[in-house]
């Protein structure tokens, strides 16, 4: 028995660690390499119907506590990504999640239908992109109605393939948002995307550094926020959760599981721990299971909910 094995709808993962979308997820070779290095599943870079060059550089900028990025959903488009997923599947049996986005609800449907051609193991709808049809272009994931619509259309077009909705924490209430996704057919919740956004200014030249001025924040800085989001999603739904955000250590991964995640996304940690981070954390998780006499890590999922500490004295 593999103590760190976990399951997501229709899938068995040899490790709970899932390569997060946008990290080393552009090409078959890169995805296959990460799979071979210990990821339990890999997620492609989010792709849409058309290729996008994204924003100019600097579009990825580490600071002392995390990473800012404004890559701007750069991707080679669905045609190319179908080929990449296809090529990946010829090389690896590790499950692959196709991350998709659209500028409109309809586009989400179209790209999902097309992505099926590559027969991915799961479709992940990235609802953090702005809804160009909405007032002020707020992201789909920040609005209960649009998030419901996207979930619905992706689910409808995904056929028998399970659907994850990847939520952003920049929304009124992520737990309730997850509930809405569940009602509209989501099989999995991925939480969270980058937070903020943030900005950094180069004072010598009095300018923001990122080409797009601002960028989403990821990495260890955001871990507590991601953990809280996973906790809330768990409170509001019964769906399996891929907990993502700032996980860089074994203890972070275990915290995610205890907060209610079934699988744990690994993104920025590739910067902090190298591509070996999958193996490092896998080993740590095995050691954790051994030290705690657990036949399976599954035994700790959601356990931090079971004995809610007493509330403080304040209102």
């Amino acid at each position: 028995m593999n103590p760190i094995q976990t399951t997501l709808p229709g899938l068995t993962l040899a490790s709970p660690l899932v390569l997060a979308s946008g990290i080393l997820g552009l090409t078959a070779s890169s995805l296959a390499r990460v799979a071979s290095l210990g990821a339990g599943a890999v997620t492609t870079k989010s792709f849409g119907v058309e290729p996008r060059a994204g924003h100019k550089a600097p579009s990825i900028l580490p600071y002392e506590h995390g990473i800012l990025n404004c890559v701007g959903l750069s991707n080679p488009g669905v045609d190319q990504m179908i080929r990449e997923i296809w090529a990946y599947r010829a090389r690896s049996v590790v499950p692959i999640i196709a991350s998709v986005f659209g500028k409109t609800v309809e586009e989400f449907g179209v790209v999902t239908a097309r992505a099926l051609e590559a027969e991915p193991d799961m479709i992940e709808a990235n609802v953090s992109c702005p809804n160009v049809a909405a007032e002020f272009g707020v992201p789909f994931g920040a609005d209960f109605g649009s998030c419901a619509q996207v979930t619905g259309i992706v689910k409808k077009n995904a056929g028998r393939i399970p659907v994850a909705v990847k939520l952003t924490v920049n929304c009124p209430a992520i737990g309730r948002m997850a509930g809405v996704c569940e009602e509209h057919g989501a099989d999995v919740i991925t939480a969270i995307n980058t937070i903020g956004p943030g900005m950094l200014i180069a004072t010598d030249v009095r300018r923001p550094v990122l080409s797009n001025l601002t960028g989403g924040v990821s990495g260890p800085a955001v871990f507590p926020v991601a953990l809280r989001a996973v906790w809330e999603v768990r409170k509001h739904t019964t769906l399996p959760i891929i907990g993502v955000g700032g996980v860089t250590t074994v203890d972070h991964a275990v915290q995610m599981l205890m907060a209610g995640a079934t699988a744990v996304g690994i993104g920025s940690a590739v910067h902090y721990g190298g591509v070996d981070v999958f193996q490092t954390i896998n080993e740590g998780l095995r050691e954790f299971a051994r030290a705690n006499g657990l036949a399976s890590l599954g035994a700790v999922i959601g356990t931090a909910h079971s004995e809610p500490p007493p509330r403080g004295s304040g209102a």
Partner: protein
Amino acid sequence: MMTQAVPPASGMLRMCRILEVVAHSPVLKSFLVPRLFDALPGQFVNLWLPGIDEKPFSISGIRETCMELSVKAVGPFTRRLIECAEGEWVGIRGPFGNGFPLEPGALLVGGGIGMAPIRFLAQMMAERGLPCTLVCGARTRADLIFEPELLRWGCHMSTDDGSCGTCGQVTDLLDGLMAEHPASAVCAAGPEPMLLRIMEFADRWSLPYHISFERYMKCGIGICGQCCVDGSGIRLCIEGPVLNRDQTRLVTEFGLPHRDASGLRPGTPASPLGKR
């Protein structure tokens, strides 16, 4: 809760002023900036022109207090960059990548702007008293940077038009040199067709080789996946840009047009290959 993940500082931005500009030709210039860190030949930095863009450049030399970057104007960014004057602010992130090994008795081969890292390598080997044979080629004399220095190091040169050194391609020189002084290894940087011929040459003589690759890059810190070569998926910004024979053999896209900023390879057909 105490397992601290210490962020490596290398990906962070540092600002500095250009200390000196050396014009080699109207389209080729070297920029001296403060020596912000130690680096190995073959490593590169991302250079930010505030408000414009950020692009990767090899370190072409390091002196006590400064660091050199050598740039060829080929497109919008580099054309803008070579207009930069002493005193202007630039942002630097790096050093990125692995760098060349220092192999005593190696043949160092640079082609065109590929001379940048090779020159740094030659400089460092000279400093450490390690013997090496330097060969460099360019289209015409105007494309040859570092000429005086190269001559001092006894560099073998070739130009396509014969305006300096042997007339022809740099690879034409290699077999002759090898027959004279058997080399221990080859370290090379330059245009891909040249690199291909060098690999053939090295295979012919059963020499180990180390070749610097260029691919579209964004992050420099190994996360965006933009610089991963097809085949092994190796990241050129971390495990490269210098690959050895075993690594190079796994590259299935050698000589193909590079993927662009979207990740698309120009010329790839628009419809998928088919279904299982």
